[in-house]
């Protein structure tokens, strides 16, 4: 993939979550779709404001859990019925009650790993490089500042015009981020 060049987007910095949410909501209402907010803690209102209402982590967790359950249960059944049948005190070879316990543990194991790694994959992480890290003030996004980024991919993006648009929200600063 070719490395894109030029502007990644315009990054506006805010002091409070309220200012950010207001700016994000207005941008979304004005028709912006390629935009994102960056906050030092989960801010649900900001996600709602940019139209991000649901995610698919629960679905992937469910699939993972069912896979773990099936895998372990079938493994136990195969081992006890076909591969290595053991007579333990004359008990049923197909002791499904006993098999449920390891199968239950593997349900949780697979579901948990799917939730964690599925979440990271859907976020596109690990991503050691991101153009936003070029913005000199972006380091504070992980401490106490709130950012709104209007991305150049959006058809509405036009450097000078978009900057004027952002200035209406009275941000602390606006930075043009390069790739």
């Amino acid at each position, binding site marked *: 993939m070719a490395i894109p060049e030029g502007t990644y987007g315009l990054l506006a910095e805010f002091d409070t979550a309220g200012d950010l*949410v207001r700016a994000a909501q207005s941008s979304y209402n004005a028709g912006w779709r390629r935009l994102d*907010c960056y906050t030092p*803690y989960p801010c649900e209102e900001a996600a709602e404001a940019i139209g991000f209402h649901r995610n698919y982590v629960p679905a992937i967790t469910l699939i993972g859990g069912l896979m773990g359950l099936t895998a372990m249960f079938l493994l136990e059944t195969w081992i006890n019925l076909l591969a290595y049948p053991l007579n333990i005190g004359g008990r049923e070879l197909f002791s499904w009650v006993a098999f449920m*316990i390891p199968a239950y*543990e*593997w349900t*949780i194991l697979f579901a*948990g790993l799917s939730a964690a790694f599925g979440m990271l994959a859907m976020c596109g992480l690990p991503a050691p490089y991101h153009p936003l890290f070029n913005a000199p003030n972006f380091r504070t996004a992980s401490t106490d500042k709130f950012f709104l980024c209007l991305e150049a991919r959006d058809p509405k993006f036009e450097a000078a015009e978009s900057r004027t648009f952002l200035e209406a929200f009275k941000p602390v600063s606006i930075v043009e981020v390069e790739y």
Partner: protein
Amino acid sequence: MALKNVSVNDPMLDPVTGEYRVVGPGHTFKSITEKISRIVLTNRTPVGWFLGLLIAGGGITILLTAVTWLFLRGVGIWGLDMPVAWGFAIINFVWWIGIGHAGTLISAILLLFKQEWRNSINRFAEAMTIFAVVCAGMFPLIHVGRPWLAYWLFPYPNSMAVWPQFRSPLLWDVFAVSTYATISVVFWYIGMIPDLATMRDRAQGKFAQFAFGLFAIGWRGSVRHWMRYETASLLLAGLATPLVLSVHTVISFDFAVATLPGWHTTIFPPYFVAGAVYSGFAMVITLAVPIRKFYHLEDMITTRHLDNMAKVMLTTGLIVAYGYAMELFMAWFSASHWEYFAFWNRLFGPMGWSYAVLIACNIAIPQLMWLRAVRVSPSMMFIMSFIVNIGMWFERFVIVVTSLYRDYLPSSWGTYKATRWDYGTFIGTLGLFTFLFFLFVRFIPMIPMSEVRMLLPQARVKPPVEPLGEPVHGAGD
């Protein structure tokens, strides 16, 4: 809330509710971040830290010596003999893993119940879980006799064409504990990613920037990521909750499935879980009290935390007391001669002293926690936590040893005496646990900064949010 003994002008009291605050007053996002990250990012390591590490390192030396000797000579160096073939190793295994359970309870169950006060103690409680599981997991492995073949426990295709026996609780243990360890580590790490990003952004040194940057895997705090992250955290909490209950249930099956008086009871699973949480909270307090004092974190790990944890301990302690009472009642009510004798022997036999210690440490003394003055006093809670941990260790001693040493046939009766290698291994794991914990407080932010930020009043977006510009109607309007 009673306000006796508390000065009205105490800044740690919330003026509205009269309760102790979860976070001290006057904090901002920045002050919290600075205070917590400074502990890790400073170049000046406190002398006390080195001293502590040194002492803990001594414990590890003992552990290595004991385990090396064990590998050379076999489990015969321990005090194991018929009829007591399960001794310190199993006692310590159950004790350590029980301690770990409070970490999961704090990080998972209290998250599901929206107990926000747990945010600040969550990270180190989870660290405690992982280190406790490390110590716990070691005991069955070194107890198997030929530890280099411990991987035979897992079902894998092998040239001997044998497979594990899936009806055995000991095999269930393998899956329960390995799943527990994995999920705990994953949960801990996922919870740490945003804080690692903060550390990456605040670190001055090249190496620190690189190391934190590597582990922060490029987290940039996008709200889309945050929302998925929150969902994943809730799901992991929802998964860890039944997991933690199942782990100690399975461990109790190791005992309860055996047809031995004193073990073969249906009350074991719930009472083991309650006991695990009880001892785990005690260990959290044992760790929290010195840490908040040493690093001056009294405004983040507050009296409120101690008070709440004391209440959890009081509750689980009473569940455990109910378990003991029910065991004794069933010994009488079952009209089983063997069952009756097992408990008579537990109370009045040659090792009756261990039952007395157990009752004193787990039931009698902790009742002092009904007093508010005890719950809000760090030193009293520290002592209390020690007593409970001792009591819970003795609970496992009583269950393992006093059930085994006098079983059905008087001709097979024996006794149990731990050797210096038993004690050495146990003290060694205490050293290992402490050592890992010292490394943790120095190199990882021990309080989750992003979660404590959420506790601040300024984290709430003030309604109403009036959007500027013309609203655009979406589909379905």
